[in-house]
């Protein structure tokens, strides 16, 4: 099989395939089907400084063309995650990307402080789509100035590489990406779920939409940002198979994340990795490391 390892933030990853945040639990759950060490890197669920309760039931809506989730960022908190799980990932020799969120700017900085410095953490992925409770719930990621400030603040707290995960629901995603870059960001994950609303028996519920239809939006974001910014981009959104992943690499992504596809077929990630290796070996996928 072909060697599809990739270098990211100075570290060599087995392959350029990761899970998207929140689609592979805390990492141990999937091991009844496949070893987590298959991944290039494991991306955690969104973690906050303090444990966070999620939303009431139901939390999932099947839209036919994809799904809407309103999980509500339920998580056990960064500290507990690091205590209970980092040893597991160390044993599996699988680097972690810690996805963080906050409801105030200070909470993002606190997250970075709590992670500290540990060799198993490859990077911090900053979910900027959270509502800013001090600014009427507008998501942080909409304002380039806020993005610049948050990234700069996180960077001053940690020497771990920082990735900004951006939403495409902004005026100009390149402008936001540029602001993150000016704040000192080391990489980008493009894109998050797209905000949507479902009518649940007369009750309107907000959530994030994901699924195959996201791909063109994500691909556009990757394509446009890769042309303009000299930092690695991780493509995410609507990847269901190896062909989708290859489109992202060709558009300029250094790595990809697979999310919702895992719910439809929990073996999607190993299948994509296998197929990418095959294509590479056969010389059908040429790339620069």
């Amino acid at each position, binding site marked *: 099989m072909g060697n599809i390892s990739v270098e990211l933030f100075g570290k060599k990853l087995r392959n350029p395939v990761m899970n998207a945040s*929140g*689609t*592979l*639990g805390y990492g141990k*759950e*999937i091991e*009844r*089907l496949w070893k987590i060490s298959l991944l290039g890197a494991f991306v955690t*669920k969104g973690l906050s400084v303090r444990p966070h*309760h*999620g939303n009431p*039931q*139901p*939390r*999932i809506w*099947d*839209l*036919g*063309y*994809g*799904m809407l*989730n309103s*999980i509500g960022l*339920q998580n*056990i908190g960064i500290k507990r995650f690091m205590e209970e799980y980092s040893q597991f990932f160390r044993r599996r020799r699988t680097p972690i990307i810690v996805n963080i969120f906050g409801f105030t700017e200070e909470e993002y900085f606190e997250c970075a402080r709590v992670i500290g410095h540990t060799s198993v953490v490859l990077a911090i992925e900053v979910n900027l789509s959270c509502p800013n409770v001090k600014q009427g719930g507008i998501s942080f990621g909409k304002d380039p100035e806020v993005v610049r400030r948050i990234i700069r603040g996180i960077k001053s707290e940690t020497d771990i590489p920082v990735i900004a995960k951006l939403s495409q629901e902004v005026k100009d995603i390149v402008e936001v990406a540029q602001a993150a870059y000016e704040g000192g960001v080391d990489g980008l994950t493009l894109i998050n779920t797209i905000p949507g609303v479902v009518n649940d028996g007369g009750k309107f519920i907000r959530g994030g939409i994901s*699924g195959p239809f996201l791909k063109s939006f994500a691909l556009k974001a990757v394509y446009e940002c890769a042309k303009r910014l000299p930092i690695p981009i991780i493509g995410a959104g609507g990847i269901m198979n190896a062909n989708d992943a290859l489109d992202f690499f060709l558009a300029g992504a250094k790595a990809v994340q697979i999310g919702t596809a*895992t*719910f*439809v*077929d*929990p073996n999607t990630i190993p299948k994509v990795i296998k197929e990418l290796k095959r294509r590479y070996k056969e010389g059908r996928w040429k790339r620069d490391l």
Partner: protein
Amino acid sequence: MESIIEKNEEIIENHYILNVRVKGRIPKITPGQFFMVRIEDREVFLRRPFTVYDQRGDLLSIMYKVRGRGTMVLSRMKKGQKLSILGPLGRGFHIGKRDFYLVIAGGIGIAGVHLLMKRIGKKAKLFYGTSSSLGVSLVKDLMDYEPVISTMDGSYGYRGDVVSSLREKIDGFLGKDLEVFACGPKEMYRSLKELLSKYGFACQILWEERMGCGMGLCFGCVVKTNDESDPEKRVCFEGPAFSLWEISL
């Protein structure tokens, strides 16, 4: 796992039993565990969870009620068609070594205790509640165990709900080392909790919520419990069998 439909039969209106022959060996199933089934349709994206109704060799059965698009499409599938299934998933009933068991099922909840009855039926009494005599067909396979049947309209057996029929009979079971297993709607669990709180029996129930992945990955199907360090449990992963006493009802 790939499987082929052997039979997909309507038992009573909107209630079906689906038998599939699974390619390869089915792992050992604990009653209460479930499978995620891929239903191929333009309007169905995610897999749907179904509790295991029965299993013999490579033959797996589920009993389901048509509720939405997914089950509607499933009900139209025919013998010979392929079905991708994933399982068994979740934590089923923990069956210890009690002297006797009371098994309580409401409506389509019978699907969740059928396999359990086949395993422990000789040491168990089944209480089954349904809306009318039509629903009695869902339990015909378990008639040898002489279930106590109640119907809301009184057209068969006791008139009233299943927990009321249990209330009338429960004195006959006191003094035994027994445990209660139940599967049914949330209102049934509420009245069961009220009744059993006087007796302090151990009681396991099957909880149902809408699922995304079925494997503990997405945190879509959580239920609130009284566990202080982890109150929100995943139905698909820590459940679907829970103690009646740990669930916030």
